[in-house]
């Protein structure tokens, strides 16, 4: 597995873990009948802060661990250059993620048209942002593995 693939896998794990944390809390709130705007917005805040902190820490840790393992295995300085293929894969992944997010935004707007409360709309938005990130990372991994 290349450095880029390892990095994407770490991002993917982060996204899945944080999304899991979010979903578990939403389900718990629904079961306890505490699914209201006050609780959901404080959960949103916690999730976004968590996501920023975990992403920064995991990027630093992955780079350090990868550099150490690479140095031990090959006795060479690791190179973190990003070339045209990496940029193209990044673009394609972002395009796919954007497609999924657009569907989520459409579903969120549709929920308002169908008379659902605005909390449902907000939850659909955040769920689709997680889903789009996960889909974008999976498609990046796919392009690295399969080529195009």
């Amino acid at each position, binding site marked *: 597995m290349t450095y880029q693939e390892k990095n994407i896998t770490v991002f993917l794990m982060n996204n899945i873990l944080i999304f899991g944390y979010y979903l578990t809390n939403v389900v718990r709130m629904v079961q306890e009948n505490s699914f209201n705007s006050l609780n959901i917005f404080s959960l949103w805040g916690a999730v976004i802060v968590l996501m920023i902190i975990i992403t920064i820490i995991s990027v630093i840790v992955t780079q350090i661990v990868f550099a150490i393992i690479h140095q031990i295995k090959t006795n060479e300085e690791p190179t973190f250059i990003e070339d045209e293929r990496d940029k193209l894969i990044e673009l394609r992944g972002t395009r796919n993620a954007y497609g999924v997010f657009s569907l989520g935004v459409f579903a969120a707007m549709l929920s308002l048209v169908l008379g659902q409360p605005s909390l449902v709309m907000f939850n659909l938005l955040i769920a689709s942002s997680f889903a789009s990130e996960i889909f974008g990372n999976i498609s990046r991994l796919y392009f690295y593995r399969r080529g*195009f």
Partner: protein
Amino acid sequence: MGKSGKGRITNNIRKLRFFQDEMTQQELAKRAGVTRQTIIAMEQARYSPSLELAFRIAHVFDVPLDEVFSYEPVDESNQSSNK
């Protein structure tokens, strides 16, 4: 094979490396300014490079571009009759 529109782009990178005293993929990647994974993907025909990168690779081997890469148009009439 690398796909590009209605044709195939093939390359002789592996052969040219062999004739350059078995130049390593890492060495070629360094001189062409890309990662080794990109060289591997090109050799396995999983990636068709940009025109600029194609010229840089030809420059590394000191040969004309068409000695490194070749384009084979796919006959659409044959393709549709094979379906």
